[in-house]
């Protein structure tokens, strides 16, 4: 290519390229950067060969491009002008792509993106949700042009902005334009770019330097890399314009050497601009000189700091120095220097070419334009995302990112790397902009968004970042050198289970010192990961220190196997699964009963936190632990029955339990096991508590509850049926009767009211969830006819809706405040309800109930925009203009339950908690009255049965300690069972592919809704045997520790 010596020659060249490029040619864009690790090179070559073989070289161009963004589905190819995107393409697909799509315009379903919910193929890129919410401006060329060819960039209007700046704008005008665009530094700090350029221009010393900071070192960030690899000329054009505006003649790109493709593409691009005369002496005949060179970093994170970066360019150790003087006054070689981030420069050509008015159309008041984020971690659609500044975090993680894989719960998103913080779920509706993120303790940073799910430990994440900053601290200033080491030591101690509660204050105080006294940004910001997790996840720190519990089940010192640790009751899962594998079903149940006396109940309705943490789930799918538990316990009751010898009474003290629900009975069972005579007082004629009242027969047959209760009774627990504790028989009476301790576990059985107009009137057809369920369960006359609305998004609401269907309701629709992702109901229940024909209407707030002559006739709703406010508080916000009225014959309100406190006299000395229940010590469950303990749903509010069980066992241990005069805290570590089972590791046996999780059989939806038969079927012995051998036995890794 010949050197261009005038402005006009650029346009002349561009026209020539456009004419030669043969418009109308079909282009196949193959990502040759990120996708390369997935064999994109072979895909491209196969496509080229095939195109040639078919003699289509004149009609089809196979082009190597930069990143398409959708890295999760690599290798990705796009076919233009069709607009089709294919994913996970294999070289073997090439003949079909050429023959069908390129020649015949047919679409190939196998290679298309599949909607995760409907599994329908989406062929066109602009219809894939990942792209729909994006605004790809800076990334517009990325994935479309061949980054190694300047002609492609020119054809895409490249260097038009430079031409405009050089020919029609003074340097001052360029700066004004950038100022007006409100472009802020994309490297993280967000300083207004125009202002910065102005300072550099004003300093009268020469030469001046322009530096592009491409030392993208933040772990979790890869947007600069993609930019440099996919569209290097955009960055270079931005630099040349900046240099023109500031009056600089020398430019340096400081790039990480760990990015070989970026280095290669930059070298090529610089050589091309030199050859064309777009850099060098007398650019385009305008007299403006600009020499651009490339410097490679040598692997020091601190060199991302501007003063350290300059030291490194000068060939010294990359250590920061105090500012002022700022680089704009005395930077590189003591000369005025301007440093901007890659993405900042890449924005500049857009502003100059299209004008600031266009640029400022998107964004927030204080920062305009778009921001590129790299989405990684526990999110389905990992990749490169460009959104208008001010888009919400939820849009990023859920709408674009597609949510969390494997049905796990979102925990936080780490923003800004080691200098940033963790943003918890309550802030998902906040806008992504510099000021908001700063306010909540995170930063925009360079734009790394690493999504964390429930299987991540926040203390460990903080430790991880501190180990990074500690090793990257340059050591020049004492606060950073010593502070990072101390913080790391403390955090490591906590994750090892050796933390002290004072450590929390120490972290805060060291953090503050670091922030105030460190020399550079690395030190000032490094406590943020610790401080932000401390702020939003304090409980995780406390649990590590006090209880040796790690919410993510990752901290080695306290975790034997993740499944056991995840279980609130701490059941030794691997060993009972192994017992099933060996055919020792009775032993399997014995192992479960060491921690949980309700194996058959939990085998059916447990939410199985264990399965979400199962390590097998990282390979393919988790072991079906719950179904295995059901198999073993069903076998047990079938073959061994409910008979057993009672535990001998060895202690003198008698103990009373109020409520024969899962918490009460568990407590009584373990007290009996310890040798106490225990009596349970139950108000109802049946035991089982909420299990018998609110869980419908089709999920948990009455017979199963009966068997578990009989077994517990047979082990020595005395249940007094129809014996309420109330004004006639008070807690004081119990004490007088000689009970030395009482455990109150009377559940949460009072249905909450909404408090909307029309609710208070006593109408026919208006019900409350629990009352409805218990009426059905106990065989009451509950026939529904016509349309039925269920209000609520929780588990009880789902049970209510499904029960309503079985009670004759023709049509059941559920309305809830929450969006589908926010609904608290367990996914499995929601899906089963949907299968059965329940219609879900998320994001609607109930407004008014209507009746005609005392009979329900309809209900109105307003659209709920947000359930939680910007501080994460429950504070529903509605769009009053978006309303609907729905005809209905029945309304069942199921928005939550509260404990029924009416049995306690008003003047009871028991201290109440804020929400009406009793105040208890979280560790011992003791109330303020000695000898009185309370737990289960009664104190925690409605939760899952396994939590109630764990609370019951905790109470038993606490009561035993209390009666023994032991005042130490309750400590329930994970323990190995005495019945250890020896099986080999699944991994050693065979490959994982051949061992998919056994599917659990279900009754067909159309059949099951006819009656109350159990929906889920159990495993057969063969299925259970196969499934149990999928266990990886992570617990054995620790043997001998």
């Amino acid at each position, binding site marked *: 290519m010949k050197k261009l010596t005038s402005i006009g020659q650029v346009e002349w060249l561009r026209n020539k390229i456009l004419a030669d490029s043969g418009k109308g040619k079909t282009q196949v864009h193959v990502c040759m950067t*990120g996708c*390369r*690790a*997935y064999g994109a090179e072979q895909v491209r070559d196969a496509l080229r060969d095939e195109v040639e073989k078919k003699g289509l070289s004149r009609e089809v161009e196979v082009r190597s491009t930069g990143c398409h963004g959708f*890295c*999760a589905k*690599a290798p990705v190819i796009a076919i233009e002008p069709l607009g089709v995107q294919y994913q996970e393409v294999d070289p073997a697909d090439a003949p079909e792509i050429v023959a069908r799509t390129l020649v015949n315009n047919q679409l190939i379903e196998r290679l298309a993106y599949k909607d995760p919910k409907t599994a329908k193929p989406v062929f066109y890129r602009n219809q894939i949700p990942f792209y729909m919410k994006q605004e790809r401006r800076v990334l517009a060329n990325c994935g479309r042009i061949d980054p190694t060819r300047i002609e492609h960039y020119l054809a895409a209007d490249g260097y038009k902005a430079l031409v405009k700046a050089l020919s029609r704008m003074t340097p001052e005008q360029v700066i004004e334009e950038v100022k007006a665009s409100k472009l802020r530094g994309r490297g993280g700090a967000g300083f207004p770019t125009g202002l910065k350029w102005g300072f550099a221009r004003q300093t009268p010393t020469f030469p001046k330097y322009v530096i592009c900071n491409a030392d*993208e*070192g*933040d*772990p*979790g*960030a*890869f947007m600069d*890399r993609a930019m440099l690899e996919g569209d290097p000329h955009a960055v270079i054009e931005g630099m040349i314009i900046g240099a023109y505006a500031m009056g600089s003649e020398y430019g340096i790109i400081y790039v*990480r*050497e*760990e*990015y*070989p493709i970026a280095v290669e593409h930059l070298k090529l691009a610089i050589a091309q601009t030199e050859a064309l005369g777009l850099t060098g002496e007398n650019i385009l005949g305008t007299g403006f000189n600009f020499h651009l060179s490339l*410097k*490679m*970093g*040598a*692997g*020091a*994170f601190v060199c991302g700091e501007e003063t350290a970066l300059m030291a*490194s*360019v*000068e*060939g*010294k*150790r*990359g250590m920061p120095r105090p500012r002022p003087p700022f680089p704009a006054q005395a930077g590189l070689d003591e000369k005025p220097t301007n440093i901007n981030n890659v993405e900042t420069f890449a924005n500049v050509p857009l502003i100059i070419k299209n004008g600031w008015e266009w640029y400022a159309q998107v964004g927030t008041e204080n920062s305009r334009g778009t921001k590129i984020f*790299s*989405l*990684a*971690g*526990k999110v389905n659609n*990992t*990749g*490169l995302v460009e959104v208008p500044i001010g888009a919400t975090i939820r849009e990023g993680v859920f709408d674009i990112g597609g949510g969390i894989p494997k049905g796990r719960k979102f925990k936080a998103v*780490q923003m800004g*790397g080691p200098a940033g913080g963790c943003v918890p779920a309550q802030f998902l509706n906040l806008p992504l902009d510099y000021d908001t993120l700063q306010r909540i303790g995170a930063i925009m940073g360079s734009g*790394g968004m*690493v999504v*964390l799910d429930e299987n*991540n430990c926040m203390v460990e*994440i903080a430790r*991880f*970042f501190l180990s*990074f900053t500690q090793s*990257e601290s*340059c050591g020049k200033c004492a606060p950073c050198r010593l502070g990072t080491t101390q913080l790391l030591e403390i955090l490591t101690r906590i994750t090892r289970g050796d933390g002290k509660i004072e450590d929390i204050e120490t972290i805060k105080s060291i953090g503050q010192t670091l922030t105030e006294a460190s020399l550079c940004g690395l030190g000032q910001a490094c406590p943020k990961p610790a401080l932000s997790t401390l702020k939003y996840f304090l409980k995780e720190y406390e649990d590590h220190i006090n209880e040796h519990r790690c919410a993510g089940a990752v901290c080695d010192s306290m975790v034997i196997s993740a499944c056991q640790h995840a279980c609130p009751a701490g059941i030794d899962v691997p060993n009972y699964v192994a017992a099933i594998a060996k055919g020792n079903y009775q032993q399997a149940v014995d192992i479960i009963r060491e921690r949980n006396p309700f194996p058959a109940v939990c085998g059916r309705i447990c939410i199985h936190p264990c399965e979400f943490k199962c390590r097998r789930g*990282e*390979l393919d799918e988790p072991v079906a632990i719950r179904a295995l538990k059901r198999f073993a316990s069903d076998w047990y009751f079938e073959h061994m029955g409910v008979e057993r010898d009672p535990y001998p009474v060895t202690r003198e003290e008698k103990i009373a339990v109020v409520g024969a629900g899962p918490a009460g009975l568990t407590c009584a069972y373990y007290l009996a096991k310890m040798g106490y005579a225990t009596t349970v007082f139950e108000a109802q004629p049946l035991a089982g508590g909420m299990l018998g009242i609110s869980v419908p027969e089709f999920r948990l047959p009455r017979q199963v509850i009966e068997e578990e209760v009989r077994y517990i009774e047979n082990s020595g627990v005395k249940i007094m049926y129809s014996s309420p504790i109330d004004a006639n028989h008070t807690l004081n009476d119990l004490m007088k009767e000689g009970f030395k301790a009482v455990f109150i576990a009377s559940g949460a059985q009072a249905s909450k009211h909404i408090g909307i107009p029309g609710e208070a009137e006593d109408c026919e057809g208006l019900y409350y969830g629990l009352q409805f369920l218990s009426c059905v369960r106990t065989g009451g006359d509950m026939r529904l006819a016509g349309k039925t609305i269920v209000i609520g998004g929780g588990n009880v609401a789902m049970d209510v809706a499904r029960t309503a269907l079985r009670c004759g309701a023709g049509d059941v629709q559920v309305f809830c405040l929450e969006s589908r992702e926010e609904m608290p109901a367990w996914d499995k229940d929601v899906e089963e309800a949907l299968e059965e024909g329940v219609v879900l209407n998320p994001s609607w707030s109930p407004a008014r109930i209507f009746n005609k002559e005392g009979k329900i006739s309809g209900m109105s709703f307003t659209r709920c925009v947000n359930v939680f406010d910007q501080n994460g508080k429950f504070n529903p916000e509605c769009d009053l203009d978006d309303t609907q009225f729905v005809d209905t014959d029945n309304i069942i309100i199921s928005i939550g339950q509260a404990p029924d406190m009416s049995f306690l006299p008003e003047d009871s000395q028991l201290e109440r908690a804020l929400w009406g229940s009793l105040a208890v010590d979280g560790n011992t469950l003791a109330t303020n009255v000695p000898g009185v303990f309370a737990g289960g749903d009664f104190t925690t509010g409605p939760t899952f049965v396994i939590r109630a069980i764990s609370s019951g066992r905790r109470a038993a241990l606490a009561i035993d300690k209390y009666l023994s005069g032991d005042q130490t805290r309750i400590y329930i570590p994970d323990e190995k069972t005495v019945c250890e089972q020896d099986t080999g590791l699944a*991994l050693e046996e065979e*490959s*994982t592919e051949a061992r998919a999780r056994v599917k659990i059989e279900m009754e067909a939806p159309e059949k099951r809704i006819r009656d109350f038969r159990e929906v889920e079927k159990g495993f057969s012995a063969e299925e259970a045997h196969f499934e149990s051998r999928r266990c990886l036995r992570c617990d054995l890794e620790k043997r001998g520790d």
Partner: protein
Amino acid sequence: MEPKPIDWEKLASIIETHRTRKWNLIPLLQEVQETFGYIPPESMEPIAEALNMSPAEVQGVVTFYAGFSLKPKGKCVLKVCRGTACHVKGSRSILRFVQNELGLQEGETSEDYQFTLETVACLGACFLAPTMMVNKNYFGRLNPTKVSSVLNQYGKSKEDDGSP
């Protein structure tokens, strides 16, 4: 096995191309590192002399940057990514697995100079997490099976230049 002897002539010619050029210490060291796989300690004095600085300054720079090594490395340099995205996706287990397979700890080189095991703060390939790099090739979405196959790929090609 001994590492390859240093080609002193080659070293001298690299130093010559950078002699007395401003700010060229790091590019020079990078070229030496690239050519020899490490910075031979004996080269620090001639480098210092060529750039008019003290050997102490050269050593200061060499030891500051993670990209320079004073010890020879293996033919295949494995960099297991320990970035955030990889970390939350289990790169710690991957690292342990690699350590066991190679019998090497971080920063160590095998006796036959075939493998060097390193960790890196972030490879910027977070979408592939957990990931590692062998020389200049990326490998992503690792699990034990995949790591084994990558190691085999490189272990078998001992005689050539270390590419698969």
